[in-house]
């Protein structure tokens, strides 16, 4: 039956296949032509590329931290928590006020590391709280509803959170205070690399390693994996499925909150109630790119997306003679998302999912 359906689909989809192949070849040709043009024009030095590489990695590790929340929730509930970008925003925005207070009182200058730890603590707890409340109020009543229902709910929740935070804190853009110890750069192999980028990358890697240990080694992690395999059976085996789901949301929120502070350290400007939408969309891209549902996938996907965004405008778009290529930086992520979903929906590291799951 299934093969017959596939045969029928195959014969009918042929001209669609043709179009898709044309698109595929077109994309590859554009990338190659653009890169070759840029590289032969020798507009940028090796130092430029290295600095782009590290800023891409730093940005990418922030995406990866947010993407983990998407991927873990998807792995367990098979739903896209569209409001996850707002959880990130909630953490970053509330921690800003603490950051501002520490900077004003002079505590930041005397104990910079302790201050950052406090910011992280606040951001992570607020984001966790928002994530858990979101699950409890908006998603739990809909757990058995058709798939599009929770997605629409998530969009509603996302709007609600954005405008609630706007109402609470106002819509003006704010900036995190400067942290003196993270200014400047170190020289490695003759290349200057800013310290804040190294800090963000290292901190993100530590967090991801911690998550990996948690998921692979602890009992809760084990039950999380069991629930993502099969909720029903896991429940029969005595696992409290609800608690596992809440834990998943909480961990996702925690990582998004941490990402919020890192975002504030790496790019201090532009902290506002609406800062969550694009990073959310991009982190979702990262999760899909790596293979949604896969934890290592989200990490790899985030880094790859960060690099794409960093190199893309200068390497590919400028080579194609597009003016103001950096304006189109955000388009790259979205185009990447569309291309991945068309050509490789299972992502880089994802398993090939069955029809029901994909």
């Amino acid at each position, binding site marked *: 039956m299934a093969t017959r359906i596939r045969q029928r689909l195959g014969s009918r989809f042929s001209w669609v296949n043709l179009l898709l192949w044309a698109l595929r070849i077109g994309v590859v040709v554009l990338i190659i032509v653009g890169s070759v043009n840029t590289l032969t024009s020798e507009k940028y030095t090796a130092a430029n590329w290295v600095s782009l590489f590290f800023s891409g990695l730093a940005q990418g590790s922030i995406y990866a931290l947010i993407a983990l929340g998407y991927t873990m929730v998807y792995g367990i509930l098979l*739903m*896209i928590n569209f409001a996850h970008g707002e959880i990130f925003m909630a953490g970053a925005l509330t921690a800003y006020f603490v950051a501002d207070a520490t900077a004003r009182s002079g505590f930041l200058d005397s104990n910079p590391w302790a201050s950052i730890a406090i910011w992280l603590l606040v951001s992570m707890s607020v984001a966790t709280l928002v994530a858990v409340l979101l699950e409890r109020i908006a998603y739990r009543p809909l757990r058995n*509803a*058709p*798939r*599009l229902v929770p997605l*629409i709910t998530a969009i509603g929740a996302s709007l609600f959170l954005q405008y609630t935070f706007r109402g609470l804190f106002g819509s003006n853009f704010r900036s995190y205070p400067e942290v003196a110890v993270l200014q400047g750069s170190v020289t490695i192999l003759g290349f200057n690399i800013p310290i804040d980028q190294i800090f963000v990358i290292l901190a993100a890697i530590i967090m991801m390693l911690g998550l990996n240990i948690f998921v692979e080694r602890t009992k809760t992690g084990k039950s999380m994996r069991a629930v993502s395999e099969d909720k029903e059976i896991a429940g029969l085996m005595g696992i409290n499925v609800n608690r596992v789901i809440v834990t998943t949301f909480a961990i996702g929120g925690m990582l998004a909150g941490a990402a919020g502070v890192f975002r504030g350290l790496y790019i201090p400007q532009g902290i506002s109630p609406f800062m969550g939408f694009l990073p959310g*969309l991009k982190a979702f891209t990262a999760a899909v790119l790596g293979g949604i549902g896969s934890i290592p996938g989200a990490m790899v996907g985030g880094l790859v997306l960060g690099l794409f965004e960093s190199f893309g405008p200068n390497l590919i778009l400028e080579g194609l003679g597009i003016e103001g290529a950096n304006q189109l930086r955000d388009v790259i992520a979205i185009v990447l998302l569309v291309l991945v979903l068309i050509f490789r929906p299972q992502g880089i590291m994802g398993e090939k999912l069955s029809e*029901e799951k994909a």
Partner: protein
Amino acid sequence: MIHVRDLSRTSKVQLALKMGLFGVILMQYLIFVGIIETFENRDLIRDVISIGTWMTLLIFAGTGYLAVWALERASNPSHEEVKIPIRRSWAVGSGAIAGVLVGASIALLVIVNSFIELRNVFVSISPELIEIVTFGRGETLAGLLIPIALATILAALTGSLYVAREDVRRTVVLSVVWVTLAALISDLIRVSLSRPGFPVFLSRTFTSSNGLTVLGTVTVVVLVIAWGIFGPRIQSRRAERIAARSEKGQRNAKYRQWGLVILLLLTLPAIVGVFPSEVLNNIGLYIIMGFGLNIVVGMAGLLDLGYVAFFAVGAYSMAVLTTAQPDIGGLGLSFWAALPFVIIITGFAGLLVGVPVLRMRGDYLAIVTLGFGEIARFLALSDWLSPFIGGAQGIIHIPNISVGPVVLRGPQVLYYLFVLAGAVALFISWRIQDSRTGRAWMAMREDEHVADSMGVNTVYYKLLAFGMGAMIASLSGALFAAKLGSIYPHSFSVLVSITALSLLIVGGIGSLPGVIAGAIVLVGLPELLREFGEYRLLIYGALLVTMMILRPEGIIPSVERARELRDDDRAQDQVFSLDDQAAAPSNPSGD
């Protein structure tokens, strides 16, 4: 007094406290988000009470009502049984307990604010707000006690109202509801009453520039009471009269009703005046878009979150084809000459979006179309394409629409174009709904693979849905461009898609009357209530979540969709295959 389930005294008190806590959360949320303060500038009854204060009092009262409602529900666990009445003493007591909590939370806020200046972080906690919630007493002992006392008394009163006689209860609740509604749209009433032909005293006595007058309020209450007394009698007499009519007579009456509706529709701009006509046009814009999106989402089941892209393509192609702006290279066509091209171009854009997403399902499709919408906006903003479509500066000098020698100017005239386009979109949707195409879409929505093996050409029908949805959106976009005379990229944000989707969901997915109702509620009301503007999207978000949890089929549901959304067995995307077998078809409302 007999009790089906005897609740202990502690559990009754606990229940009241729980509901009181709910009231506290709502009250504090409205305070902190700034809604109370925003509405303070507008009066409900002129010089008597502002809407902000009115909302505060409503929450006090509502908490008491809620507490007794919960108590009744807890004492009568099953719906079939005869309701056991709540004892009056308990009704008053529960209300009072819940009310004290709400009042105390306000007092606590005032105390905390006097020690720590909350305004440094929370922008809404201003001195004016403290004045509002303490009813003008500020940070004094009276300011702390008055909210507590008022909340307790009001909540206790509504608690006892809950157990009062049915007709008393209904009259009070209806009076509150109607007074609130009348006050909110008092501007509209005022404009409609103050036109040539109407005696001037009508608008002056009942409404003012700032809310209802006292006389107006009394009139509304008297009308509600009168309807309570005479309403049932009038209704039964009318029902008798209708039943007595012959079949032909009934049909004639129906035609007459439709005739009236059409007549009203055609004379509406003349009745309401210029500004409300502008609002009507905005509603029309979204009704057209709603019909288009309904084809894609409601009929074909493809959740498109980037619908704004088609609206934008329609508006931009109309602008480029008609503008007289020299640096864009506009063709300077007339509106009518450009319209066919606009529709074709946008339809083609629909196909362009449709092809790559042919094999995606459900939620992926939604996110990818969202991405397309964003791409459209970024491209419109970019310097790269600015020689063709104006970049961030947009396109200006789009000529007015003219019919022959007559130039259509002003919202009251343009209105008829919106009605025309809306009627076209409605007619197409209505005819296609149950046609072969409509049924094919329905089959596809239910299960794509089954539809395919039944011989439905899913590729064709998916593309058709995208194309048709896009073409209808292009009508809306073209009218938008011609109406404003200039377009800018920032008009085409993701919020347009979200608004269109929200009105569809609030009205009822797949329901044509629902689209109209949804557009009136979501687009029309906020424009009439200026203060809502700031909180419009907050309310949309809350509406989307609550609708999905409580009433996923919308306020005017389509029969088919209601069944699908309520009953998992028939839903296309079964997410939890095992859960579906284990659990009975779930009922999201929980009743």
